[in-house]
């Protein structure tokens, strides 16, 4: 699954499952946080659930991620952050989405995010926050529920 070219690794949807086959998710890291274990595990979970997943790698600015999301025409951006800088970075990410007229792209946050910060994130435009100890099933349903509620575009 190594790919050194292009914006990121496109992980093909698992043949076995077609239920969520049309949901496209961009899994991203923002800023300088290098903890990518969780992001990569989530990318595999979503792929195994039949979604199409793009992983954009490390050291991406909010603008980079929004552009990749538009280019890849994804339904959801899932960002994992463990650097403590989630509030300013998600605020900027959501601002960039609005600026580009891409508010329809849903934003899901994960990683180390203290519950005290949930209101600030939800207020700035994050659609859902997945807790650190979430099991695979919860991560998948968080995304399918959001997409179902928004409707397909």
């Amino acid at each position, binding site marked *: 699954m190594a790919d050194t070219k292009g914006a990121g690794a496109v992980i093909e949807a698992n043949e076995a499952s077609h239920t969520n086959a049309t949901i496209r998710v961009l899994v991203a890291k923002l800023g*300088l946080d290098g903890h990518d*274990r969780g992001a990569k595990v989530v990318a595999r979970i979503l792929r195994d659930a039949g979604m199409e997943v793009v992983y954009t790698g*490390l050291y991406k600015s909010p603008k980079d991620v929004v552009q990749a999301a538009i280019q890849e025409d994804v339904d959801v951006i899932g960002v994992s952050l463990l650097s403590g*800088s989630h509030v300013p970075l998600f605020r900027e990410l959501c601002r960039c989405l609005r600026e580009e007229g891409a508010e329809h792209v849903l934003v899901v946050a994960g990683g180390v995010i203290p519950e005290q910060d949930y209101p600030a994130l939800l207020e700035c435009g994050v659609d859902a926050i997945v807790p650190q*100890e979430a099991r695979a099933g919860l991560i998948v349903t968080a995304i399918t529920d959001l997409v179902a509620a928004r409707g397909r575009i």
Partner: protein
Amino acid sequence: MDDVTLFSQQAIDDIRQNQAEWEGGALAATLKSRPEEKQTYETESGIPLKRIYTAADIADIPASELGFPGAYPFTRGVYPTMYRGRPWTIRQVAGFGNPEATNQRYKYMIQTGQTGLSTDFDLPTLLGLDSDDPMAFGEVGRVGVAIDTVDDVERLFDGIDLEKISVSLTINPSAWVIYAMFVTVAEERGCDLHKLTGTLQADPLKEYVAQKEWIYPVRPAVRLLRDLIMYSARTTPKINPVSLSGYHLSDVGGNALQEIAFTMAFTISYCEEVTRAGMDIDDFAPRLSFFFISHQDFFEQICKFRAARRVYAKIMSERFNARKPESMRLRVHVQTAAMSLTKVEHHNNLMRTAIQALGAVLGGCQSMHTNGLDEAFAIPTEEAMKLAIRTQQIIREEINVTSVIDPLGGSYFIERLTKDMEDEVWKMLDEIQERGGAIKLVEEGWFQQKLADSAYATFKKIDSGEKISVGVNKYADAASRSADVHIHPYDDHCTQLQIDRLRAVRENRDDARIQSLLKELVEQARSDDINLLPKTIELVRAKATLGEICSALREVWGSYSEPMIV
């Protein structure tokens, strides 16, 4: 002593016979009436575990594989008297905000009984960016202290005697610049550089595969470490210029075997680089240091430390022909496992950490960081750090585990598992060698794929409930909430203060001189055989910023682009 086995053949034969009788009798009867809970038992890294170990299980291990503490192959410890002569160093890492905030925390921790300092840097500093760089947005002083110029390092160690307390610096791709700043501060204070003690992490290969902090492509990063090792050996002979870090390999999903094997593979690559540049192995190997995790599988972790010491001693002696015993002893700093901590019922983290810390002590560590119970939320508060320090003090002073060296040595189980782990590590090292060595495999993403696979396998075990996390996937209490924890506050003025100071420095220095020194540094970097440390120290003294120095070398080497391994 080479051929001495621990038991006579007659004794082993008797034990085997008695065991067969026991298995056919008492054991068989019990298994019939009450089967065991699992079909098979194994360690976290998949080594099969027997029901019971006897002398017959270690009959093939010669006495020389154990040896004595402070002597080859160092299985039983790196010093002849171990904790009887000197207890391990309590070294809690700290770093946040502006340098003076971290300095204040240091003083608090010294007062609480900490015996060595350790610094975490913020992400911009780690990645060689100044605090006013656009990519530093939101990150300044967040997960560590912000350093832009030598003045910040002076502030960081204000009022701390650098000749008396050892200082560990958790710094990687920009390590050579931070070292230059540290040495400059010590020199300006009039310290004897030969008396400075401390450790830089500066382990680039594990960055590309695990912690993921990088600036340049792999080979120039290894060259920078080579320069640092060689310069430090001559200038600051008591500083450990590198801390070979298995911790992070574990943190991204590696098991105990991968932790040791990959770390040893990286060690081999660095030693090859330095010896190829003309330095004798015994002139730098005594200052190689290590950093491992103490994770959840208690006995496997203890055996990991013992096996790692033995493997390292053999590599240095047999592969690199080291002659000094100091070149063959693996000195290790240990941190308990942040990955094992939970947000749910976070007080349980105290127990987890205490047990892991005990394992590190029984494994013979030289220094230790115990995690704060709030580590799963944010960087630890003062109170959490105090509890973490107290945990080590209780182990050291209340429970009498430090009187006897390697107290578990000789246990049939411990010796068998130590040997099994060692054998597995050699197999992995052979494979790495056959595939072309560590540097090539890092470039190809081989380690990255192994670790990502291992992380996913671990997640699935937790997800299915096979791997238990108490309070999370077993004995979960619907009523327990995780939010009531006091979280270390982030100082919003931190970024602006760093930026204001940067501007002041830039306005009050000789810019033309900086530009010409940067040009000289770039020229030197084009040639592989010039040590970049002297020029870097000149730059630091002239008040060049970390970001300026790091970005100048991008001109020569470019940036690293990661293989997209998922």
